[in-house]
């Protein structure tokens, strides 16, 4: 589960990490009120969306479509204003808030559709002397948590990783010990920090690890982590993702979920414990098992069409789950055909066949449907479909199924 910056920083503060003072706002009035309460003469007003690259993003309707296309390509110094604005007066805070709230921000990470800005984060300004990159995440190769830091702050870390991997410093954490202060110091000196900045950094990074560990994060990215003119370190941004499997022990974090940032169909699928991801193609897929579901998408592409979704009904699919899955797939107007691919192991094919029929009878069928069943009770399953009188196209193998649905969609 992804969090907004303001939520992430709230969690950091709960774990003793010092951040700049700030507050969330859902209207221009609220934004001004937050700025007033913070005091000072410089404020930063930031769009709260789940995607990164906000500063370099541009708003739909504010700039030409050609500029938005350049945003997606990662071009710098484009005309127009971004999703993060430095304001030198309360009037500027109001104007910035009005210009961003309710508008759609396109960044390199949102894709062309962009993301609607419904919340702003108003934060006190600070004097930046230098920017760094820091991330905490799981390293699969060692099955340990990894702290990565780089002096190339503010830029895309992927670029640094590709061109100058030696510029990324890494420390692996022993889960029994936690992140050692000596490890944080090694990072600080490696990054070229000196004087009181080293101690400030050590305090910050060990606090960040404590947060990561305490909230069951799967990713905590601070980009940029800045050193201020006075030599202190500050997490200027915070991108936090929580391990979905661990949400059961964090009811306070579950409350932070922003459904507006998620695809409605994916939310609906989640209610039925279905794993669904909307894609751009035209052939809907209903499959049991994540690996087979991906392979089914691939074979559709192999035969020249694109999948409309990833959908795994799971191992214990019931008639109700299959029906819900069908409804979600058919609601997508881009779907021109449906491929059901079930390898019934423990799940019996006759039960699946009944589920498919029940779903078709309930939601109707306006596009071609190919069903491939394999495994336990396959003959009975096929018989049920054949005798149903419904226009279900049966298939024997994955290749057979893919060829048939691709042909049917082409008409």
């Amino acid at each position: 589960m992804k969090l907004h910056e303001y939520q992430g920083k709230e969690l950091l503060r709960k774990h003793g990490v010092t951040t700049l003072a700030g507050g969330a706002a859902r209207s221009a009035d609220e934004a001004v009120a937050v700025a007033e309460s913070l005091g000072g003469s410089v404020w930063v007003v930031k769009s709260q969306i789940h995607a990164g690259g906000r500063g370099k993003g541009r708003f739909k309707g504010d700039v030409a479509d050609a500029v938005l296309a350049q945003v997606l390509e990662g071009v710098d110094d484009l005309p127009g204003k971004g999703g993060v604005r430095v304001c030198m007066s309360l009037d500027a805070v109001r104007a910035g808030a009005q210009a961003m709230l309710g508008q759609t921000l396109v960044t390199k990470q949102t894709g062309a559709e962009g993301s609607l800005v419904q919340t702003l984060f108003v934060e006190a300004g600070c004097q930046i002397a230098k920017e760094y990159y820091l991330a905490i995440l799981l390293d699969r190769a060692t099955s340990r948590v990894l702290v990565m830091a780089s002096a190339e702050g503010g830029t895309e870390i992927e670029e640094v990783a590709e061109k100058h991997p030696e510029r990324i410093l890494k420390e692996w954490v022993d889960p029994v010990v936690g992140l050692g202060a000596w490890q944080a110091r090694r990072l600080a000196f490696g990054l070229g920090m000196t004087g009181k900045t080293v101690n400030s950094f050590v305090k910050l990074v060990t606090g960040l690890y404590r947060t990561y560990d305490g909230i069951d994060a799967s990713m905590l990215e601070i980009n940029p982590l800045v050193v201020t003119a006075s030599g202190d370190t500050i997490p200027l941004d915070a991108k936090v993702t929580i391990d979905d499997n661990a949400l059961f022990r964090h009811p306070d974090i579950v409350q932070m979920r922003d459904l507006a940032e998620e695809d409605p169909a994916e939310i609906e699928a989640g209610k039925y414990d279905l794993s669904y991801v909307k894609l751009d193609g035209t052939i809907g897929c209903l499959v049991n098992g994540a690996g087979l579901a991906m392979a089914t998408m691939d074979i559709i592409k192999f035969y020249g069409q694109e999948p409309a979704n990833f959908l795994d009904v799971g191992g214990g699919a019931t008639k109700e789950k299959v029906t819900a899955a069908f409804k979600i797939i058919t609601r997508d107007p881009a779907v021109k055909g449906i491929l059901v691919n079930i390898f019934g192991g423990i799940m019996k094919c006759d039960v699946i066949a009944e589920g498919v029929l029940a779903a078709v009878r309930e939601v109707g069928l306006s596009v071609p449907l190919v069903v491939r069943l394999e495994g336990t009770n396959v003959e009975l399953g096929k018989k049920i479909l054949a005798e149903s009188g419904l226009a279900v196209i049966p298939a024997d193998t994955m290749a057979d199924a893919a060829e048939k649905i691709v042909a049917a969609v082409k008409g």
Partner: protein
Amino acid sequence: MAILVDSNTRVVCQGITGSAGAFHCAQMLAYGTKLVAGVTPGKGGTSFNDSVPIYDTVADAVKQTGANASVIFVPPPFAADAIMEAADAGVKLIVPITEGIPVRDMVIAWRYLQGKGVRMIGPNCPGIITPGQCKIGIMPGHIHTPGRIGVLSRSGTLTYEAVGQLSRVGLGQSTAIGIGGDPIIGTKHIDALQLFNDDPDTDAVIMIGEIGGSAEEEAAAWAKVHMKKPVVGFIAGATAPPGRRMGHAGAIISGGQGTAEAKYQAMEDAGFHIVRSPAEMGRMMAQVLGRL
């Protein structure tokens, strides 16, 4: 004798009285697996299906029955604890089937297993089967046939698909192993390839990968130097967009890492016989072995 499990493997099930545990234990018994004990804290002294004794602790089960492998159906919040309990009791092969264990718990459990000489398969996996001898997990036993092809994959149903295709072209399996879809798993592709390479009863291997991580690349790099047997390879998720998790917690392309194309290239570089269509795994294996 295939890899890791055979007719001499003595299995204890942790979580045998839960609905999934009970169902799959009945299936394992029916397949002929030597399921010698179950563990459910507080239900020690009772029995499962009037034939398998249940103990309060894994240590008791091991002491009384000589169990040397554990299959775990314990719910996610308690699964990491179950893994560590099995290791502490001296069980050398641990197969957690449980899906949805928090990563933080697994980081700690994995640390605990180091130095104990334990082999873990999974978690979030279908398990392991040596056809005709021993089935530990949730795969449908009847689709498998004894033979000399090793099958290695993260996922359940895609493994069944490969097994089904092999059986259709008349090739049986030495052992089929589903290593699991989580970011932290005990047996990676490279480990399973090594085991198959050293197994005199395996002639060739189907290795199925998935987008995300770099385990397939690591396995291919090892195989390029050491693998003596032909490998047929497929990668699932070539059509998956970056940044989106495809069901499995580990199946995500992030920061340009973990793409299907990079994995295919590594496999090609290692001399694997790759197939771009998942329907071609069995046929390609038959072709490689000169059966077509």
